């Protein structure tokens, strides 16, 4: 019988993993420390308390072979303050971006463009406007590319991915 090592190592996948942890101090550094100590890669990470509970949800986006993803899940499960680890395959993902654009740019299309990415103008000052959009991570990347090309943004801030099983 052949073992599965070959299959296991070859396919690189992007994965969204959510981790439910006890809301105690240093729990985030345990999670992040695990990734750095074992050489796993974090694409994005978001954390917030789960309402009406003593737990928080950490959403991690990572890329790796099946073996690496499996190890990540197992190693996360091993951490004492971790209640549950979900490796998602069929999820709604959302990422938010805030972008500051100088006021002297040609801004006539910005609102329409943002709207196409489920966004809108959030604030306007004498120097700049701020737009935001919330959408799938790949679409947010697109939005950023378009804005960068046309409007010379001053600042771009992304939230990282939150996800929920469909």
């Amino acid at each position: 019988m052949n073992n599965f090592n070959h299959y296991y190592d070859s396919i690189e996948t992007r994965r969204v993993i959510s981790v439910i942890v006890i809301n105690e101090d240093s729990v985030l550094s345990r999670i992040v420390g695990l990734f750095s100590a074992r050489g796993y890669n974090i694409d994005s990470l978001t954390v917030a308390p789960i309402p009406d509970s003593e737990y928080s949800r950490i959403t991690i986006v990572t890329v790796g072979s099946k073996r690496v993803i499996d190890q990540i899940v197992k190693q996360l499960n091993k951490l004492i303050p971790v209640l549950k680890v979900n490796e998602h395959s069929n999820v709604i993902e959302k990422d938010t971006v805030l972008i500051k654009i100088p006021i002297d740019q040609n801004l006539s299309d910005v609102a329409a463009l943002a709207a196409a990415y489920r966004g809108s103008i959030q604030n306007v000052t004498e120097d700049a406007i701020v737009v935001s959009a919330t959408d799938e991570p790949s679409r947010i990347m697109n939005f950023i590319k378009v804005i960068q090309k046309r409007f010379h943004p001053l600042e771009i801030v992304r939230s990282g991915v939150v996800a929920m099983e469909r």
Partner: protein
Amino acid sequence: MKINGARMVIEAIRHEGVDVVFGYPGGAIMNVYDEIYKQNHFQHILTRHEQAAIHAADGYSRATGKVGVAIVTSGPGFTNAVTGLATAYMDSIPMVVISGQVPTSIIGTDGFQEIDAVGISRPCTKHNYLVQNIEELPRILKEAFYVARSGRPGPVHVDIPKDVTATMGDFDYEKEINMPTYKPTTKGNKRQIKKALEAIAQAKKPLIYVGGGAVLSNAFVDIREFAKKTNIPVVETLMARGVMGADNPLLMGMLGMHGEYSANMAMYETDLIISLGARFDDRVTGRLDQFAKSATIVHVDVDPASIGKIVVPHYPIVGDLKLVMEDLNEMVHDFEFNDYASWVSRLKEYQKEQPLRFVDSDEVIKPQWVVKRTGELLGYKAIVTTDVGQHQMWTAQFYPFDFARQFVTSGGLGTMGFGLPAAMGVARGKEDKVSINFTGDGSILMNIQELMTCVEYKLPVINIILNNNYLGMVRQWQTMFYDDRLAETDLSTQPDFVKLIEAFGGVGYRVSTKEQFDEALHKAVEAKKVAFIEVIVDRRENVLPMVPNGHALNEMHLLKD
């Protein structure tokens, strides 16, 4: 009744039935030491270095199976303890280490002797805690012992600020453990065990591969029974020496980089591996893409993360090895196994063709002879620790280990300086046995100050120093792989070891003939004092066989006459 935090530490240790703790005081832990002074539930052994306190608790745990306990102060006290924690972590040794911390009001200000101890210990402990207030201290102490010994065991670190040890609070230790996020699996899945047995029964050349988990879960009787019932041959890792017993006819020896030819060939040729508490360490597998290429793999481990980490098994079984072995031994009767007699005799042939051996000499003592001879003279009467280097491998190869917990060695981290303090823990935990520490002239100097602890607490550790005037193992690699460029491995400048131990108050013997060795060992055992037997051995002896780094298990350098 309210008691202070320091007293709670004492009470927790008492409730856990611990009869000895090792440690070293200092400012931040003084409240605890004051309570240690007032109590008489357990002995405190003052080591002469914090690293040694942790290794001693570790050796005590490995030899007795109990949780080891050590106490140190903040700052440098704690940083000295780190190598000990890492050593225990890599070998999954149950241990609780308590450190003092600066008062909560000073934390974060770079106060005197402040260091982020939980930040430092995180990657080298199973879990750790910084106690924030007195209310949570009893729960944390209770959890610490529970986490240390349950599931895959490991060291747990509890850092307690000085003001917390001074504060009064309620101590309610009897409370049940309530950890919703920590529930290790203990019982293996029966269906999966059955499927594994089906596969085993059909294999032609199955092989049992035992690791340190067999020792930690006290499964060695069950493993012997299973091997006997099925007539499946067995190989042991370094950490599993003693599980089968030296004379067991099914034991094909230790495998790995310095494993026996028969063991490595068994692993190379097997069509089904039954891995019991072993983790496919790179020193065991050799070149991974050549490892057990066509074998079916059954992998039993209490730690789900160990399964599939290096090789992907066909039959993963998560559970405490002892419990899984009990199931296996019960269910084994329902199966008709193939006859493995010819497979066993083929491996026996390998053992005959290429036995573990060395070329003895009458001019100069061979280090392997010393190990073998000690085994002949003391055998199961001794519990054996080692430091790290060639002497460690020779001990693993040539000492006749007969039971689990007889061999105490730093496998995962490979810590020089481990041997003497670990042997102190053994001497304290197993007072009816002789505590032998095989060490090298390099390693022994790494925790030499502990001779004082041995003298003070009457710990009769016999250190057999295989003196080759080299950092021998590194010298061997330089000889074999670096054209004999001996960069910084010559230890020609050495202290007078006999005078050195006499200065501490122990006894020492320097020997360079076989007769002298026998006599010295006899005297050392009689003396019941910490002892050195410095054996002047062949300087240029190499550890063989050897699988060079990055080679497959069948590509061994063998001994040539």
